[in-house]
C-alpha cells in the first residue's frame, strides 16, 4: 500500500502518547470552548432552522433551478452558454429581492453595480459586525469587473468562459448566488438552499468526474444498471431527493435522471448513462442509498 502521506510531518491525528497526543488534547479543549462560545453564550450566532423550499420566494426558487441546470449542463455536456443564462436569471432574481427595476437598456455591469450598492446598504451587514461587504464583494466584484470589460454581455462572456477556466467562472457565480441568498434572508440565516449552492457545484464536479462509472452493462447486454457513484469522502451514502423520470419513461443520454443529496450540503443530479427506457427504479424518492449500489435499470434503446 502506498504510504507516502503517512510520514511524520503529515500525520495530524495523534495515535500514540507523547507531545502529539497532548497536542490533540489541547485541540480537543479548543473544540469544546469554541462550541460553548458559538452555540451557547451570546446565542446571537446560532442559525435558525432553514425555511422550507416552498416558503422561499418564487424568485429565489427560479434562480436555484436555473443555476443547477446551468451547472449540470456545463459540467456534463460542456454547454457553457447555460451558465451565462443562469447568471442572468440570478441577476433578475436578485433585483427582485432588492426591489431594483431592471430595464432592458441597462448594461449588466450597471445592474450588478446597483445590486452591489443595494446589498452593501442592506441592514444585514450592519447587524453582523459593521464591516460592510467583504464577502459579498468577492463574487460580485469579480463579475462586475468581467461585465465592465465587455459590451456584448452574452456573446463575449461565453467566449471569456471558454478561454478561461470554467472552474473560476463557476466559482464566481457560486459566490455571487450564495451571497444573494444570504442577503435575501434578512435575519442572516443560512438557508438550506444557500448551503446547496456550493454543494451543488462540488457535487456536479464529482459526478462529471465519475461519469464513466455511472452505467454498468447487465450480463445479457440488453440493459444498463445505473450505479450511484461516490460523491463525497465525508459520507458513505446519499439520499435520493427526486427521480425526474418514472419507469416506462424515455431518457436521453446525459439527461438528468435523479437528484440526490449527501452529507450536510452536497447535492447533485445524476445524468443518464445511455439513451433508452427507464425500466426499473430500485430506490425510491427519500431512500438513503450507499454509494456504488444500483438504483435503477435502463433498457437500451
Amino acid at each position, binding site marked *: *500500500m*502506498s504510504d507516502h502521506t503517512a*510520514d511524520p*510531518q503529515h500525520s495530524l491525528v495523534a495515535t500514540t502518547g507523547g507531545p502529539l497526543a497532548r497536542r490533540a488534547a489541547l*485541540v*480537543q479543549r*479548543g*473544540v469544546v470552548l*469554541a462550541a460553548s462560545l458559538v452555540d451557547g453564550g451570546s446565542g446571537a450566532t446560532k442559525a435558525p432552522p432553514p425555511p422550507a423550499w416552498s416558503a422561499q420566494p418564487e424568485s429565489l426558487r427560479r434562480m436555484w433551478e436555473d443555476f443547477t441546470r446551468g451547472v449540470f449542463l456545463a459540467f456534463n455536456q460542456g454547454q457553457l452558454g447555460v451558465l451565462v443564462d443562469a447568471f442572468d436569471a440570478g441577476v433578475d432574481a436578485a433585483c427582485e429581492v432588492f426591489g431594483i427595476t431592471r430595464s432592458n437598456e441597462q448594461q449588466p455591469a450597471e445592474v450588478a453595480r446597483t445590486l452591489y450598492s443595494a446589498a452593501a446598504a442592506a441592514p444585514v451587514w450592519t447587524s*453582523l459586525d459593521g464591516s460592510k461587504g467583504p464577502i459579498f464583494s468577492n463574487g460580485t466584484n469579480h463579475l462586475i469587473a468581467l461585465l465592465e470589460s465587455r459590451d456584448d454581455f452574452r456573446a463575449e462572456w461565453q467566449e471569456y468562459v471558454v478561454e478561461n477556466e470554467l472552474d473560476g467562472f463557476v466559482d464566481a457565480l457560486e459566490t455571487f448566488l450564495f451571497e444573494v441568498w444570504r442577503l435575501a434572508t434578512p435575519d442572516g440565516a443560512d438557508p438550506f438552499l444557500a448551503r446547496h449552492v456550493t454543494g451543488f457545484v462540488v457535487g456536479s464536479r464529482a459526478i462529471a468526474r465519475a461519469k464513466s462509472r455511472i452505467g454498468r452493462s447487465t450480463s445479457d447486454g440488453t440493459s444498463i444498471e445505473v450505479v450511484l457513484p461516490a460523491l463525497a469522502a465525508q459520507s458513505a451514502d446519499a439520499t435520493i431527493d427526486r427521480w425526474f423520470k418514472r419507469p416506462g419513461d424515455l431518457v436521453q443520454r446525459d439527461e438528468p435522471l435523479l437528484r440526490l443529496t449527501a452529507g450536510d450540503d452536497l447535492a447533485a443530479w445524476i445524468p443518464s448513462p445511455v439513451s433508452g427506457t427507464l425500466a426499473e427504479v430500485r430506490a425510491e424518492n427519500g431512500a438513503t442509498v450507499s454509494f456504488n449500489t444500483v438504483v435503477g435499470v435502463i433498457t437500451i434503446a
Partner: protein
Amino acid sequence: MSHGTPEERELGKKRAELVELETELAQRELDLATLAAELRAFEVRYLRAIGVLFAELDELTAQLAESQALDHPQDAQQQHAAADARAEASASAEALGDVDQQRPMAAFVPSTDLKRLYREVAKLVHPDLATDSAERARRDRVMAGANRAYGNGDEARLRAILDEWVSSPEAVPGEGIAAELVRTIRKIHQIQQRLANIEGETSTLKRSDSFVLFKRVEESRASGRDLLDQMATELRRRIAAIHAALNGRRSGEVTA
C-alpha cells in the same frame, strides 16, 4: 468500426480509462495534500494563539490547587486535586514544547501555480503507477518529498522534483502489447485502491478535532467574527480570575 487485434483494442480502452483515472487521482491527491497542509498550518496557529493560553491557565490552576493543598495537608482529596492539576499543567506545557520555536505560521493558501505543479507531479510520480516494488519505493520517496514541498508552499522545490523526474531514464516505458496491457490493468487497479484510501484518509482528517475547529473558525470568519480571538478573550478572562484568586490568597495569607 474498430481496428487492430483484440489486444490492441482492449489496450486502447484500458489506456483511456487509465488516463481518466490518473487525472482524477492527481486531483484527489491534491485535495488531500491541501487539506492536510491547511490543517497543519491551522494547528500551529491555534497552538500559538490559544494553546499557550490553555497552558497558562493550567499552570495557574495548578498553583492555586497547590496553594490550597498546602493549607490542608491532611485533606487527601485536596492533595490529589493538586497533583492532578500539576500533571495537567505539565502535559499542556509539554504539548507546546517546540511550538514556540517554530516559525510564525500563516494560513496555508496554495497558489494556482503551486496546485498545478503538484497535480503534474502526482500524475507522473504517483507510487500507484509503479508495477514493481523497487520502482514503487522510489516513487514513494519522491512523492513524500513532493508532499512536503507542497505543504511548505515551496514552488521551486516542486519544480525541481518534476524536472528531475521527467529527465530520469526510468521514466521511459517498456514495450510489447501483452506486457503493456498487464501493466495498464495493474495500474488501474492500484489507482482504484489508492482512490479508496484517499477517501478514507480524507474522512479521518475530517473527523479530527483540528478539522472541526478549523471549520468553526472559517465559518465564524465568513460571518465577520474572529472565533480564535473570542476564545483568547474568554481564556484571558479565566486566567485573570485565577490570578485574582491567587493574589487574594497571597495577600490574605493564612485565613483558611
